[in-house]
């Protein structure tokens, strides 16, 4: 798993939802379980895409992703 993308995702999650502890953003966690609502999750994904300079079709994020699969998805486009 790409450690840099994981670190970026952690920072972004905390930026969008400051109540979440960055150490909870582990590969098996799901953002919804951590307390991110649907709008938080959409904002997080868009901010990470912007940071990486990539554009990933919204449909790609439709499944029930854990942090590991999100990082993999970003990594595939980065």
């Amino acid at each position, binding site marked *: 798993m790409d450690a840099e993308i994981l670190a970026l995702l952690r920072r972004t999650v905390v930026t*969008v939802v*400051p109540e979440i502890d960055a150490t909870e953003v582990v590969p098996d966690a799901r953002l919804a379980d951590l307390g991110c609502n649907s*709008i938080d999750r*959409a*904002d997080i994904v*868009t*901010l990470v*895409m*912007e940071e990486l300079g990539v*554009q990933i079709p919204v449909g790609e994020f439709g499944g029930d992703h854990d942090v590991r699969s999100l990082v993999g998805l970003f990594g595939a486009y980065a």
Partner: protein
Amino acid sequence: MTVVVTALGVVCALAHDAPSFAQALREGRTAITERHDGDEDAPPFAARLTGFEPSHPAARRAPRPIQAALTTAAEAWTSASLDADPLPPGRVALVVGGNNLTGRTAYDLAAKNLAYVPPRFALHMQDTDHVGTISQALGITGEGFTVGGASASGNTAIIAGARLIAAGAADACLVVGAMTDLSPVEAAAYRNLGALAWEKPSVPFDRSHAGFVPGEGAACLVLERAGVRDVPPLARLAGHAQRLDANALADPSADGEVAVMTAALASAGATPAEVGYVNAHGTGAPRGDVTEAAALRRVFGAPGPLVNSTKALIGHCLSAAAVLEAAATVIQLRDGFVHATPGLNDPIDPSLRLTGPAAHPAWIGLALSNSFGFGGINTCIALATPDTA
């Protein structure tokens, strides 16, 4: 059926809650300052909301107008004891006064790569995001919507809220005057129209007036059907009226203003002689001030009631102006004074009983509060001490 005001919430350049707002009104302090930061695109004279931190977690990522609105709604909610002494589900309504509340957020995003526009903006770009956020934060499940009337939006919201209660659709209604956060494009439009005070400071009804001075703020009134809950009323909403000029322009009309004040008095079952005080629209725009002065003379004759403009203290808060001014009127009714109009030294019409640099102690009894909006939207509400019939 009587509609009363049971609580206030205020956030503006002068004060960040209703008790400090009342204190600042008594002192006649003005929050209008001249900026010296070299930003040539921003209005040089303004009453800006600074040092304000939203207390409610639901306002965390919200735009400033929603942060301000939610803060006032939460203050009014608590002050009205709506937590401790709740109404049944669905019996509290929420009306937000204001239109075009999202221009600043849209402006700030306009330079962005469209692929990275925050999805959250799909919510934030709606004026009704105020309704969603406030209702979620306070658990409001009755009717809710926004109403717009340009600079008269606050009074149109108060009127809509009063009608929900009068129609039996709600027992209480939070009426929020939403903050206008002018983007540079919007400020430029007002400037280029000649509406904004730009070259020199401007005081309502003073011969030096030269346009309106923008202010930032929001306010909330809790309106309730009298007698449903055991809470002491601050004031009674004695009457209200709205009249159009059938005119799309920014031109004020004395006929329209006379008509709306006369209709508000009729709605209150009162005569002009019973009015102790008028909170004027009084923006500092020369034509608007002259027109309103003429309308006041025609309705009241001489000597007429005491008159001031709260905009001399907090600037013209546009969408929120009428709710802030209704709050100021309630405070003056309750506390027995008419606040100063600082800087008013050379009145355009000496026959009007305009307050100058000092406050007047006054038992008001019945007051009118005027708000007029671009597009010929004239509004007037009548507020009275709660113990008067």
